């Protein structure tokens, strides 16, 4: 029984991290309905940024979150203004196509600059906590991961408040629901889209800065995290921030619990199989507006 409880706890902790990775996509894809194949590359850039600041300037990744978020916000806005804006009016497949090109560009620009070698950060705050543990009712929580998960949750809640309670957030939602109506009340859709891209990129880059404490950094690192992100955004219901969080937690737990009893190679397959099952019962995802 403790085994199961431990697996659930492990899954929840990973789930919070997945949620932060996915929520950037929720903003861009869920709210703004723009498919972004290059989401993984934004994550990767965030991880590289954190590594570079840590290796070169001894800046702890948790502190590096601020400069990385600002830089990636600007980058997201740039990507929208120079590329996505031009493909927005056309076929959705052209958008996909554009982001695939972006994927090649970004991933290989990093290969050109840094080679494909693995990089690691050392002596970060979370790493220095080492093997510190908390045991509650027979279940062990590793302190570094717990803190990271906690941080992800805090950022998530901050985002939720931003989207649901601020004027900016409401303007974003309005643009997503009905662009023309939004224009009528004085919202400039182009500005909203640019800010959404900036916000989305910044969020996933922040996730990268946190992940860098636990994972190796290399140009191809994006895909394994973001393939789950796509499932999470859809499972949560496109555009629902809360849905993303719950879906991410669910995904983390499914991944973790199934592997205790079933072949581990099918870890992500179980997640996607669950998506199919849930999708068939509830086609709009957990919280989606259909």
């Amino acid at each position, binding site marked *: 029984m403790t085994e199961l409880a431990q697996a659930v706890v492990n899954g929840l902790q990973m789930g919070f991290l997945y949620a932060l990775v996915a929520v950037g996509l929720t903003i861009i894809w869920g709210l703004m309905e723009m498919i972004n194949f290059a989401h993984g590359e934004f994550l990767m850039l965030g991880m590289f940024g954190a590594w570079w600041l840590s290796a070169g300037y001894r800046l702890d990744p948790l502190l590096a979150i601020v400069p990385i978020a600002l830089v990636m916000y600007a980058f997201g806005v740039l990507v929208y203004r120079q590329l996505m804006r*031009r493909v927005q009016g056309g076929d959705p497949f052209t958008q996909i196509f554009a982001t695939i*090109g972006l994927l090649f560009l970004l991933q290989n620009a990093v290969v050109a600059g840094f*080679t494909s070698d693995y990089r690691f950060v050392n002596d970060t705050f979370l790493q220095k906590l080492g093997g510190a543990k908390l045991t509650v009712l027979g279940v062990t929580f590793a302190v570094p991961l717990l803190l990271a998960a906690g941080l992800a949750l805090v950022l998530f809640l901050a985002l939720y408040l931003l989207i649901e309670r601020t004027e900016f957030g409401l303007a974003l939602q309005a643009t997503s629901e009905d662009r023309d109506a939004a224009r009528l009340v004085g919202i400039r859709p182009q500005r909203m889209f640019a800010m959404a891209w900036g916000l989305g990129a910044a969020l996933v880059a922040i996730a990268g800065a946190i992940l860098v404490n636990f994972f190796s950094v290399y140009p191809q690192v994006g895909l394994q995290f973001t*393939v789950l992100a796509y499932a999470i955004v859809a499972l949560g219901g496109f555009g629902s921030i809360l849905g993303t969080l719950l879906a991410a937690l669910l995904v983390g737990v499914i991944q973790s619990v199934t592997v205790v009893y079933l072949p581990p190679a099918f870890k*992500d397959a179980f997640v996607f199989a669950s*998506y199919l099952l849930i*999708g068939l019962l509830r086609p709009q995802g957990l919280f989606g507006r259909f």
Partner: protein
Amino acid sequence: MARIALIVGALAAVVYPIPLQIQGTTYYQTVGFLVFVNAMLGLGWNVIGGWAGQFDFGPQVFFAVGAYTAGLLYVKLGVDAWLGLPIAAAMAALICAVLTYPLTRLRGHYFAISTVAIWMIAQPIGATWEYIGAAQGLFIPVKPRSHVVSAALSLQFAGPTKALGYYYAALALFALTLGLMAWVERSKLGFYFRAIRDDQEAAEGIGIDSRLYKVIARSITAAVFGAAGVLYAFWALSVFPEQVLELNWSTLPIMATVVGGIGRLWGPVLGAVILIPISQVMSTTLGTGPLAGRGIDLIVYGLIIVVIAAFRPTGLLSLPWGRWFGRRRSALA
């Protein structure tokens, strides 16, 4: 005008490999082979993606189904490619139909993720299922055939005309697919697909069962992908799960279709003819020598894609070719 272009194109395609064969530079024949395989895949994807307008990122699963089915039939039962191919294509279509029907409850982006889901589930199956070879894959031994017709029918070309044989086989399959797609485009099926794409509710309003036709569209795509998979298997002479389930087998045809013009019959063809030679040239000139390993060719490739997307989002077929080639005003105007 279009008919002349068609005849010239067909002639060029048939004649192209001959001087190369004489010179011995068979590499360019293989590039042609890849162009036709990807054009064929693009034509197949255009059915579900371009005409039926559904987001499908999972047809590489059916490419793998085709490759494994024909490969297994050959290795375990000695069934040659000419018979294995239709069986494999049918198998791919059948599995697709069964899997896709329940998925058609999902719409738009939700459907897209469900196609990815099937792919994510297929991967560990491919890697761990011992019967089909698991991670070690399936090897297809070459049995050299004495007669050229026998070699063609079994897709087992050997010796110095190997690349030539595969080129013509790919050309033949491509031409067949093109003919089939041209027929579908003009048929009632094509009409129903496009109706569903343009306005699903309205289509249902006039009595089109959108779920059924989405399944049919996707099954056609699956059959084409399965057939291409067979061609690949006999060309590569082995089927590895990592390689046949690669996402590239769908992203490259999708890119080709978008570059050429999505939803248009010749879109994927134009796109494949442009994208593949470009990536080969980039790889040779920029991915080699002192620049090797820095991915410069892929950066340039990515830039080209981004530029095409930004400045010609409707695809290159939509460029005013007629005006450029000085088409005289048609008598029908």
